[in-house]
């Protein structure tokens, strides 16, 4: 009897999602180093991705952060002003840099 029950559950049960309501992805708060330029990071970068996505790239060179920012504009079409680009790169290099200008 138990076996029959299990089979019928498999047959009918699997058309339903395990989560029947809206799925909510939790918000994770990452430790953010506050400083000059963070406002620009918030209004540009965090539109599309979390702060974790930035800091989990590891400490990187100035060139790396400049290229990443450029990738966001060229390939992902982030609408950034010239001033904001410079501000964001400076902020990232200052707080999440590896001390090297190039890779």
């Amino acid at each position, binding site marked *: 009897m138990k076996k029959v029950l299990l089979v019928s559950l498999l047959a009918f049960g699997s058309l339903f999602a395990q989560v029947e309501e809206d799925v909510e992805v939790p918000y994770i708060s990452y430790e953010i180093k506050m400083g000059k330029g963070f406002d620009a990071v918030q209004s540009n970068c965090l539109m599309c991705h*979390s702060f974790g996505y930035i800091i989990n790239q590891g400490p990187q060179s100035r060139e790396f952060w400049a290229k990443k920012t450029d990738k966001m504009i060229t*390939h992902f079409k982030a609408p950034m002003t010239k001033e904001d680009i410079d501000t964001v790169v400076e902020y990232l290099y200052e707080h999440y840099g590896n001390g*090297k200008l190039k890779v």
Partner: protein
Amino acid sequence: MQRREFFKTSIVASAAIIGTNLSAGQTHQPKDGQKMSDMAFPEKRPMITYSDRPPLLESPRSVFAKGITSNDDFFVRWHLPDIPTKIDLESFTIKIDGLVEKELNITLKELRNDFEQVEVTAVLQCGGNSRSAFTPMAGGIQWGSGAMGCAKWKGVRLSDLLNKARLKKDAHWIGFNGKDKAAYYETPNFVRELELEELDDHVIVAYEMNGEDLPYLNGFPLRLVIPGYYSDSWVKMLSNITVTNEYKSLFFMDVAYRVPDNATESESPEHKAKKTKPITNMNVKSIIGYPENGMKLYHNAHLVIRGVAFDDGHGIHQVMISTNEGKTWSEALLKQEDGRYAFTEFRFTYKPTKYGKMSIMAKAINRLGDEQPLSKDILWNHGGYKYNGIDVVEVEVV
């Protein structure tokens, strides 16, 4: 510019020039033992969490003591921030269009009832898995070894869907698009294009993972399964298959997930390869699931070292274990019950007799004779892709 300021700048600049002369450094073991998040994501246990939007979750090493990765432990990697929060199962369809005789909109019910149901057990691994092993640090999320997993996927053959839609004569490329969206309209979708010849009968459109519906974060309700290929091609929340005769230029195909197109697939930071190719097939790799780094082992205890090995489907021939820094290697026992695309489980019984710190190494060899290199012999590439160094776990015998 004031003189003092100039002086300061020139010191920084010269330091940087010294830095660039280093070229690619020595590759090492990937990061391990990262902190697990306190917060669990939907249908998941707490995992190593790099980002919440888009979600990026890694499985801890202990998961790889077993050949099947459970759904709640399975790694998660999305590219775009906007994932639909609800899928209506009644109205959801997968659309097949482009160069076909008959355009199709197939519901989930039809998918289950009108086509042959097939299963394949296959490893899903991110091309950037273990990226943290590279020096200098390669661009991208600094994954440890847990951006991978192995599951039993159930669904229908892609070829059956394409046959039902009937491909036109000049059909050549198949594009796959999922329901995830970017924040800006102009951002490219995460579309994959594969050549028709690449897609054999092992490629399926899956709705089940390990006997359950796909977890939301692993692509519910449908995802593409391409056994042997890295996960960037396994499109999640798959909703559209478009057949074309020419290749479209796509960011995620043309720029991301590519390695140097040369014999060693390597380059240096100063001289990046001009010609690149998609990462496609996985290389041979193994991971020790137990014991883990930093564990204390009891002297004279009967230890069973466990782990998993895999490649792109040629199949694992041997897994070799060394307990003396690679001086000698002994063959582990293998369990291969789920086919050539699945994790091969290995186990090796070992009795530690010497007190103190020691290392355990695992090296897989596939049926072609390809074997894992030592991590220090792995050459650099800018994306930090395809790391497959011999796994090393450091323990202490007490």
